């Protein structure tokens, strides 16, 4: 094998991910221009899931701490946003940051006992959190609205001069910028802003895992003792990761509250936590693109494919997802991204072999 040829082929191939990324970006930006207002709203609900799955992937995939309760943190983020908007009328995007901060603190609080409770037992505790969360919302229904839900509203005078709660939604400041149609413009506005928030989150997490801190996080997953003796502050890194992961789940929850303009205890059940786990596993872990792919897969399955099923076979969707989880774990634990990486490695190996063969020809 000559020394220059693999380097050259590598140089050419370095552009492949960049081109792919650009293509994905173009598709993401173009979608709301092509889709109807209804479908734009539908795919907008996938973005919060992707951000929350990103957080879960950071915790579980990169750091090796299993959480079956991220749906509850998602809920905390959603309620934080709803309550702040109702009580103090902060600007919308500031509430997203506030939810992230609140959930970061919540994550640190959960992360501290998680230093002692590991592996299967942490999964057990977080499973209990996910099951308990709707009951907590029910207990404090004076504040949270319980199962009836809590609308995001603004108290104001109506035309007759009576104080009423007017439901408010995350709307664009100036409609002229986007489509002329009111409803469509506001759907597109939410989509683009959410996409921007998500892009920032994904970029930040990508930089985090590629940094020195990220290497510590991964080292802890691979061997905690080895990481400790190599000088990693294991406790601090684990608690920090839990906090960041929770903050991302909180941002997801906050965005979903802004999209729906309503929160209710029925949304944040165990099913949500399990769905986040499905998105992470199907997309692939550990990876940055995985959670996004998983969330789109999950959204596509629940919002596009399932409505096509006849009424009495609707439960087929969770059945397929459940079987998929088991099969993936047995056959391809790396999920979709893992399968792609395997394919890439196999192709690279084949290329290397053929190049060796060529270079050996006199």
């Amino acid at each position: 094998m000559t020394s220059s040829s693999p380097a050259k082929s590598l140089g050419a191939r370095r552009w492949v991910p960049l081109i792919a990324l650009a293509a994905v970006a173009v598709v993401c930006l173009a979608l709301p221009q092509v889709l109807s207002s209804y479908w734009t709203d539908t795919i907008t609900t996938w973005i919060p899931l992707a951000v929350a799955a990103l957080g879960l992937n950071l915790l579980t995939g990169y750091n090796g701490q299993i959480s079956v309760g991220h749906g509850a943190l998602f809920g905390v983020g959603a309620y934080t946003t709803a309550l702040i908007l109702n009580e103090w009328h902060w600007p919308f995007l500031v509430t997203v940051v506030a939810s992230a901060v609140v959930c970061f603190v919540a994550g640190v609080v959960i992360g501290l006992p998680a230093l002692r409770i590991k592996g299967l037992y942490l999964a057990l505790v977080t499973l209990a959190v996910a099951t308990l969360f709707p009951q907590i919302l029910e207990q404090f229904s004076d504040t949270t609205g319980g199962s009836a839900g809590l609308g995001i509203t603004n108290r104001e005078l109506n035309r007759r001069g009576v104080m009423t709660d007017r439901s408010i939604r995350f709307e664009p400041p100036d409609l002229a910028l986007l489509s002329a149609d009111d409803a469509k413009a506001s759907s597109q506005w939410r989509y683009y802003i959410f996409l921007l928030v998500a892009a920032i989150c994904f970029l930040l997490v990508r930089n985090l895992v590629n940094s020195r801190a990220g290497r510590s996080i991964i080292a802890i997953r691979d061997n905690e003792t080895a990481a400790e003796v190599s000088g990693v502050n294991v406790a601090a890194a684990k608690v920090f990761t839990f906090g960041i992961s929770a903050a991302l789940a909180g941002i997801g929850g906050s965005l979903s509250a802004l999209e729906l303009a309503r929160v209710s205890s029925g949304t944040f059940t165990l099913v949500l936590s399990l769905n986040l786990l499905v998105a992470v596993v199907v997309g692939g872990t550990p990876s940055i693109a995985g959670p996004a792919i998983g969330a789109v897969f999950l959204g596509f399955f629940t919002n596009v494919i399932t409505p096509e099923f006849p009424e009495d076979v609707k439960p087929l969707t969770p059945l397929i997802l459940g079987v998929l989880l088991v099969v993936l774990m047995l056959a391809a634990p790396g999920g979709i991204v893992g399968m792609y990486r395997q394919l890439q490695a196999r192709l690279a190996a084949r290329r290397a072999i053929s190049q060796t063969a060529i270079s050996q020809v006199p």
Partner: protein
Amino acid sequence: MEEFISYLFIGLGNGAVYAMLGLGLVVIYRSTGLLNFAQGEMAMFATFIVWTLADSGLPLWLAMFGGMFGGFVIGVVVHQVVVRPVGDPHQKPLAVVIVTIGMFLGFNALAKLIWGADDKTLLNLFGRSGIDIFGTEVAWQKLGALAVLAIEAVIFWMLFQRTKIGLAMRAVASNPESSALCGIPVTRVLMFGWGLATAIGAVAGTFTAPITAVSSNLMQLTLIYAFAAITLGGFDSFVGAIVGGLLVGVLSDVLPRYVDFFEKMPLAPAFILILVVLLVRPEGIFGQRKVSRV
């Protein structure tokens, strides 16, 4: 006081059910070393079999035995097809959690697919009447649950201490490799353990169903209570599961009646219990302390 006694017996009766499901969890933990998050859903599935048999005219007792047999088969199949290929749960906890969660989703959906989304009713095994204890009426159903738990405890004790298969199960639990070298058919023993655990789940389900209704969500809360029970008692202790189950049952039924804070979250005491025990004494009351080598 009379009120308290009535709540106490309701708690004990429910606790007996948590203990039953907990016994199944302990069998699996001891043999395969994993926390089976799908245990509740497998029990729910077996309970649907009980309902189907009872609905076709079989007496409830016989239907329950039928459900236990069905549960046994489910447990064996699940172990062979799903659990065995995954590998050691303490080496790869994530894989095991994901697989049991996958089974959770799968069994839940499969039950909905087969039996529909409507709730089904299952009658009390011990009827609707009660008996007077200290001036309060206590339902036979609750006392019956305690009696059935006692019978199960005796059977378990006999099985594990007095039979060859019980000895084999204890051997496999303590060291699978040495047991295999001694000629114990390890896989068959593990299969039996999973079958046994799911069969006993059918009994727990038969007692849970009359309180709510037979639906695909039947055992989700019961599962958390059962986990609280075995956390308190020790993950590998049968005695612990029984004592823990009864304690959790009483706590979860009595506390919410007297403490306003727990009024609408009966699960909270169990959750606090899980958290505190895992933090302070991870081996529980009766469990064996785990020693790990680096």
